[in-house]
């Protein structure tokens, strides 16, 4: 059986993706088209993130993969195994120990550093897609910075529901120019994208787009003066670690309506639990 090239992709493909990455960094928030390849996992399961990670990975990297904030969700396990096998890189579940973190739907609770890169898996990169399904139209809107439709939609939410009814994939404005989809992370995570020391890269394989937010870049969630952006809040702390400032998952504990709330970031939660145990 043939041995695969380092990180699976052939060098020609990596060069093409690497060029797209540099353009993406030079034009923050702009979606760079790239000739996405068929990967050995299905489209919609992180092929964009996997192609970006494969193109930036070096032999010295330590990789962490999360899905819904957790390292042990099946798709995260599968992607981590893929890179263990094809790039033989070291992997970790500890956010602080990772140099590259690939994620689906969350940003870790532990603040990121300059020497870390966050790679997002993106299903629909176009923030305007659900307002205008045609690529030919949305491309024009970005070109002419015509984001009126987005503001109208958000304002309609307010007049109808009293607040903006978007809870995840909440649109952001990057460095005051491009409106960008932050991937389906909960809006809770949006503030972490702003002025972040780490480089943030976004890969959408099926839709064939790559985009980026360089370190220390202004990322602002769209809102209105009379309806400022706000994040989700929970009435109770995490039942496992007691954190009050994290995104909590609801876990159904029985069939009689019993439920509890625990951190979605499993690494952060277990670290806090270990700390409090050590303190006792």
């Amino acid at each position: 059986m043939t041995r695969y090239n380092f990180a699976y992709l052939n060098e020609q493909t990596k060069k093409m993706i690497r060029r797209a990455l540099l353009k993406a960094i030079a034009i923050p928030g702009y979606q760079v088209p790239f000739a996405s390849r068929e990967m050995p996992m299905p489209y919609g399961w992180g092929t964009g993130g996997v192609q970006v990670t494969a193109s930036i990975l070096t032999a010295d990297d330590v990789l962490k993969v999360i899905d819904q904030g957790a390292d042990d969700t099946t798709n995260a396990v599968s992607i981590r195994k893929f890179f263990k096998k094809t790039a033989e890189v070291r992997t970790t579940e500890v956010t602080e120990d990772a140099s590259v973190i690939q994620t689906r739907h969350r940003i870790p609770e532990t603040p990121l550093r300059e020497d870390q890169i966050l790679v997002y898996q993106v299903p629909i990169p176009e923030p305007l897609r659900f307002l205008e399904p045609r690529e030919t139209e949305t491309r024009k809107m970005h070109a002419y910075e015509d984001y009126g439709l987005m503001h109208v939609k958000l304002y309609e939410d307010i007049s109808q529901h009293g607040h903006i009814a978007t809870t995840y994939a909440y649109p952001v404005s990057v460095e005051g120019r491009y409106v960008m989809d932050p991937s389906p992370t909960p809006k809770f995570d949006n503030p972490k994208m702003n002025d972040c020391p780490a480089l943030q890269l976004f890969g959408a394989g099926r839709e064939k787009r790559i985009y980026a937010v360089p370190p220390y870049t202004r990322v602002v969630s769209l809102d209105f003066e009379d309806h400022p952006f706000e994040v989700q809040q929970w009435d109770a702390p995490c039942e496992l670690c007691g954190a009050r400032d994290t995104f909590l998952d609801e876990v159904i504990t029985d069939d009689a309506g019993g439920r509890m709330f625990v951190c979605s970031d499993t690494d952060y939660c277990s670290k806090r639990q270990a700390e409090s145990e050590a303190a006792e």
Partner: protein
Amino acid sequence: MQTIINQTGISASTAGFDQEALASARNFRLIMDAMARPGNIVRLGLQKQPVGKMSAGSQMVALTLCDHETPVLLDTSLGEEPVEEFFRFHCGSSLVDDPSKAMFAFLSGVPDADMLSAFSVGTPAYPDRSTTLVIEVDGFDSQPDKGLALSGPGIRNVHYLQVSGIDAHFWKWWPGNASRFPLGVDAILVSDDAIVALPRTVKLMEIA
């Protein structure tokens, strides 16, 4: 002084992979880091003889990013036999004379204003379809409160940079390039094995 030095060690467990693939991965990470942190002096840390007037750094940039899908322009001083041969043989790139057709331009110095404005800046719908300039200079430094004060995405507050051996009119031309954002060209300055990237987002202030 913020200088990032390449780690040359290749971990033993990955020794079975193609060395070229590992080397280009390492080089790309450094180039990407330079682009993400404009003004940072990034050393590719590789000993390589110049080819014609093309420094080791420029060679590594070319080998990492150029192939048969990237038309390359060489200025008259770089466009000599060994350099042309390097691009044809090692990269498979086609060489073009028309600046607007070049995806990359490898330049021995800053071209005149006419040529600078002839490179592709992309279109409003596709601002990524622009030329990246790779320009040879004499050297870099990053003393505080001297030379150029850089700001913009990728830079926390302000980053100071001094570049020697670059025509001053480049700095006069740059604000016009940056003001067209999202259109514009991106530049990588190279001295020996060190590079400094200037994406189109960089704002410059000259300090006396």
